[in-house]
């Protein structure tokens, strides 16, 4: 039997030394722990559908230039731009608000560096894989060259969304490792929009990790928009820890590519915490998108609500794997998970797998998953009123995700999402 390939040691040689010593040490430890590990294969349950799209050649291991020139983002409001994982203050527009600090890793003092190292150390998304193969989100810990530490003191409210633009330049092969740490104090509020974009069409990997730590009563909205180029292998991880009565809301809109993977892991650690996770994915051509979510109810009386929709056209492949884990002490948990999928062609594939693991005896936990196609009767009804077949299909396909797009609380993101969706429809419904 063919053995799985190892993670090339070329991936464990980080670039960029302009970091506080604590972070350099942490990165070194992480790299050591990843040496000699195997890459996931299709027999690795967690990578069953996506392993074949992983292309981690030595060429991909090289660092991408942090000084590449990029245009300032066309966004009015607070922005932080990262180019290939390195913060670029000169094209950013930081908010200046009492109680809010946004610092790049390279400028952290000893105390803040210790905080950053602590947050990375207890990261929930960053634990060794049980299977013995490498957990690729750990690679971020071995390779980050810079990063952002965002801190909100208690009772601080950011009045507008903060856009974090992740720009990857694909003018040659390589990889980038952005890292974002967000620590939100008691009763503070923040909306972060992460926008993943790229330029160039060489084969690159973006291995990104973002972590939110919500103190009691904190309220965070995280929006994630993924419009990178076809050749980008995107491996994204979002980890969330929630304390008492905190609220976390996530909206993600993803467009497919050669490999898109997003792991979202939420831990409801304090009583009365709640999260709401919405996700929309569209894929076409031979694109691939793999969403894995985990919601852990650790404390009692927490609510989670999850709604994901996938649309796959042509010969593309979309995957949803949603896990809800209710711990023994998490009595009175209330968890709802819904995943609906729309196949636009016979050649497209969608796999959905809800997983429930429940150890408490007094919980409400509901889940549902469906896969369907556009309804001929509905198309006939619309077309019989004079709509073109294309318009009818667009309306019906939009109807499938409208509810989720409309809920995105930032207008600029809704507009970007709709532009992307219209491009998707232009490709997906070409006839007539």
């Amino acid at each position: 039997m063919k053995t799985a390939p190892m993670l090339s040691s070329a991936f464990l040689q980080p670039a960029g030394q302009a970091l506080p010593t604590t972070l350099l040490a942490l990165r070194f430890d992480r790299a050591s722990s990843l040496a000699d590990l195997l890459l996931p294969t299709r027999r690795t349950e967690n990578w069953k559908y996506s392993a074949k799209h992983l292309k981690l050649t030595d060429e991909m291991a090289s660092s991408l230039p942090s000084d590449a020139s990029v245009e300032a983002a066309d966004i009015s409001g607070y922005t932080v731009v990262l180019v290939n994982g390195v913060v670029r203050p000169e094209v950013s527009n930081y908010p200046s608000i009492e109680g809010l600090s946004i610092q790049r890793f390279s400028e952290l003092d000893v105390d803040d560096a210790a905080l950053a190292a602590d947050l990375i150390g207890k990261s929930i998304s960053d634990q060794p894989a049980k299977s013995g193969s490498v957990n690729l989100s750990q690679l971020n810990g071995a390779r980050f060259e810079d990063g952002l530490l965002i801190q909100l003191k208690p009772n601080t409210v950011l009045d507008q969304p903060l856009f974090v633009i992740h720009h990857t330049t694909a003018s040659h092969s390589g990889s980038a490792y952005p890292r974002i740490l967000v620590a939100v104090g008691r009763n503070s509020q923040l909306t972060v929009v992460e926008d993943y974009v790229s330029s160039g069409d060489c084969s690159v990997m973006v291995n990104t990790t973002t972590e939110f730590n919500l103190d009691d009563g904190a309220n965070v909205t995280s929006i994630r928009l993924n419009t990178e180029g076809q050749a980008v292998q995107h491996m994204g991880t979002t980890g969330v820890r929630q304390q008492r009565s905190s609220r976390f809301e996530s909206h993600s809109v993803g467009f497919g590519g050669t490999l898109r993977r997003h792991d979202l892991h939420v831990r409801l650690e304090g009583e009365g915490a709640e999260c709401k996770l919405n996700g929309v994915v569209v894929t076409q051509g031979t694109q691939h998108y793999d969403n894995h979510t985990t919601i852990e109810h650790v404390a009692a009386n927490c609510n989670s609500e999850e709604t994901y929709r996938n649309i796959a056209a042509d010969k593309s492949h979309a995957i949803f794997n949603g896990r809800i884990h209710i711990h023994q002490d998490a009595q009175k948990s209330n968890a709802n998970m819904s995943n609906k999928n729309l196949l636009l062609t016979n050649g497209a594939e969608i796999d959905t797998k809800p997983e429930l693991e429940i150890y408490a005896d007094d919980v409400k936990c509901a889940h549902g998953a469906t896969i369907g196609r556009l309804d001929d009767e509905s198309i006939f009804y619309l077309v019989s009123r004079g709509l073109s077949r294309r318009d009818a299909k667009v309306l019906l396909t939009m109807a499938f995700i409208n509810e989720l797009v409309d809920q995105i609380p930032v207008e600029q993101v809704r507009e970007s999402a709709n532009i992307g969706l219209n491009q998707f429809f232009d490709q997906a419904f070409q006839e007539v």
Partner: protein
Amino acid sequence: MLSIKNLHACVEGKQILNGINLEIKAGEVHAIMGPNGSGKSTLSQVLAGNEAFDVTAGEVFLNGDNLLDLATEERAREGVFLAFQYPVEIPGVSNLQFLRTAVNAMRKHHSKEDMNAAEFMKLAKEVSKQVDLDPAFLKRGVNEGFSGGEKKRNEIMQALLLQPKLAILDETDSGLDIDALKVVSDGVNALRAPDRCIIMITHYQRLLDHIVPDYVHVLADGKIIKSGSAELALELEAKGYGWLGIKDEAVANQ
């Protein structure tokens, strides 16, 4: 205006229409009655262009254009309108957005400029009042959660908005209470126009008390076996279909 000649059609290999011949002049209203399974709804679906049905022979001309050569949406733009027996519910698409897209598709076909949202809203509100639908329905999903009567009124509202040349009403009276029947009938009567023809498919004479047709036809086994004036409907109501030498409804159903 409408000329149907020797129309044959089948669905899933089963022959349903066996040579329909029908001439309708501009301004006329024709009622088509007949037992279940006689082909009434098939006729309406075939005229509107449902691809689930195959036309095996015959011709259909509307103002000289052969409808059978046109795709469903082209027929609609040339003025064919079918009020569905069972209007489809489409959650997530607002009625308003759907109707405006339809009206603008029609206007584009006739080289007219798009109606903007405000203009359209004004028009839609007026028309919804005509069929006694609360304008709040415009903002809801297409037919989503509408009662049977509301769906039928929504169909008539669409006809009033789209101003077709040929309106086919497929059992628009079914499932309506007396008040709703009155509202829908008023809507249909408002549709009557010198340059429009209307086909009403119905089981019941009661609709014809409100909308008096110029002709009544009886369809059985995919053919028109008897035609007459409005009085024919009264005769059918009194005697059933048996006297015409066809199986009655219960038998035909089997």
